[in-house]
């Protein structure tokens, strides 16, 4: 449908310029962090060197020495990848069942699952620490971080997958049933190929949330399984001495995720709103 343009010529200039200005202001802190990461620590705190300085890669090269960056990064990758995989392994069958064989309680179960997300982490942190330290002996292990990351994201994963699966016509699955395909076959050969985009963006979003999670990962780890969130928190009070280095580490920690986020921004909306916003 062709819409008539009612905008005055003033508006045609003014609104885009305003939009650009605000977008640049919003992006500025990120730009500033990346920008500072190319300054030496000494330059980073000098107001007179705001924009004129000699760029250096030193901060990135020194990251390993000063911050043991790679250990934390490896832990972040391992725990996020496995937690995402586990969440999908548990979440896909559950969402499949709820989308194609709903019972009277399916809606209640979904709402209840969402409500587990509302349980304040602080309220149950100490028991979790106590259990994992004193009884299970899994404190500060990859295993624990993976399980916890999987569980805190599971409601959103199921929620998202459910939304995507619901859009697949029931008849396609039923036709498969007629042909005698097993349930596992239905999921693997019909459902996942059809909802591939949805499954992929769910995985991506779950990965982003795992990567950015701070509360649990910081408090359930000390050294062995500590992730990038812990590295950043540990360096939170640099008193201006290490702005350059800190910016480099921060950039390296959030860079990949921000770029991933750009790619899945569209799918994100559908999943996060239960498909209620189209």
């Amino acid at each position, binding site marked *: 449908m062709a819409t008539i343009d009612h905008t005055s010529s003033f508006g045609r200039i003014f609104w885009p310029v305003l939009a650009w200005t605000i977008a640049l202001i919003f992006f500025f802190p990120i730009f500033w962090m990346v920008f500072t990461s190319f300054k030496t620590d000494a330059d980073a705190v000098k107001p007179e060197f705001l924009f004129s300085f000699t760029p250096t890669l030193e901060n990135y090269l020194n990251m390993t020495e000063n911050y043991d960056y790679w250990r934390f990064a490896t832990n972040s990758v391992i725990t996020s990848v496995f937690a995402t995989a586990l969440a999908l392994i548990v979440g896909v069958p*559950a969402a*499949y069942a709820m989308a194609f064989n709903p019972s009277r309680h399916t809606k209640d179960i979904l709402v209840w699952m969402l409500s587990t*997300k509302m349980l304040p982490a602080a309220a149950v942190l100490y*028991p979790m620490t106590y259990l994992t330290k004193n009884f299970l002996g899994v404190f500060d292990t990859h295993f624990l971080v993976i399980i916890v990351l999987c569980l805190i994201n*599971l409601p959103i994963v199921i929620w998202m997958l459910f939304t995507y699966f619901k859009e697949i016509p029931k008849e396609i699955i039923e036709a498969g049933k007629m042909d005698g395909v097993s349930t596992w076959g239905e999921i693997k050969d019909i459902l996942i190929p059809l909802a591939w985009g949805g499954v992929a963006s769910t995985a991506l979003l779950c990965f982003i949330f795992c990567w950015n999670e701070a509360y649990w990962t910081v408090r359930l780890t000390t050294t062995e399984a500590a992730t990038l969130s812990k590295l950043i928190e540990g360096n939170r009070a640099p008193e201006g001495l290490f702005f350059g280095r800190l910016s480099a580490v921060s950039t390296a920690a959030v860079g990949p995720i921000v770029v991933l986020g750009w790619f899945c921004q569209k799918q994100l909306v559908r999943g996060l709103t239960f498909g209620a916003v189209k």
Partner: protein
Amino acid sequence: MSDRRLPRLLQTPAVILLLLWMLVPLSMTLYFSFIRYVLNSLRRPEWTQPSLSNWRGFGNYEYVLFKAKDFWLAVENSLFIVSSILVATVVLGLALAMLVNRTFPGRGIVRVLLISPFFVMPAVNAVLWINMILDPVLGLNGIAVGAINETVAGLRDFPVLGAFFSLWPVLEPISFRGTDTSAYAVIIMVTWQWTPFAVLIFMTSLQSEDEQQKEAAILDGANAWSRFRNLTLPHLARPIAIVVMIQSIFHLSLYAEIEIVSRGNGNKNLPYLIGEFTSNNIGAASATGIFAVILANIVAIFLLRMVGKNLMD
């Protein structure tokens, strides 16, 4: 026929896992909240282990409510921070979504720039804002205020206008680590991070708005404001409810931001208070935790009512 049993079986692992995740630590918290349990006590070493013989009844709850400081400060602050962020992100998000809803050159890039803060790690967000942007000496806050002061000082030497500018005060950059300002620092940084989320949701919703209806309203002579009030706002009611719900879930448990900005100096919320108690008094921490659960449930019931109805269609 396993027609009905198998689907149920498929959702069992998820249900059991989440049930355990909820019930096990929660019942332990409940138990700890009724006993005397401290991590360090030379005088009463028997209190350092959780045991039924240290039963205290509602003593921990009484202590938290009436004797310990900061409980009410934390509750008020929790609500103040959450509601400020909600109002700011929804209003800003609406305005920005309307702004980028029209077509203009570079709209795709504008959108990407605008949405980026949402993907930044909360820990990085807090460290970046408090040290490099809001810091009165080393951050851009101090540099910007310094630049304004210098400009004003320069203008004072001007022949006629100088008299006017000499009336201007010399500005002092605000320190955002102070007792009365640190809550604002948290609100600013979280608003920065979550406005993109609101923009993203509202933008998507605006695209499905009925254009013909709008055209008709324009032909009927409705001005932009009444079109917004009577057409766009009702259309956005559900997305607004969803944004409010999801953000409440996340912001009631803010922690990293508060710790990094001020270490709770004058700016505690319930999770932070629990964290403080956890350094020694587990009984009090658990009782506070139960209060936090109750608060979250009140908010949750309210919110699920608001959006729950049309969640499934």
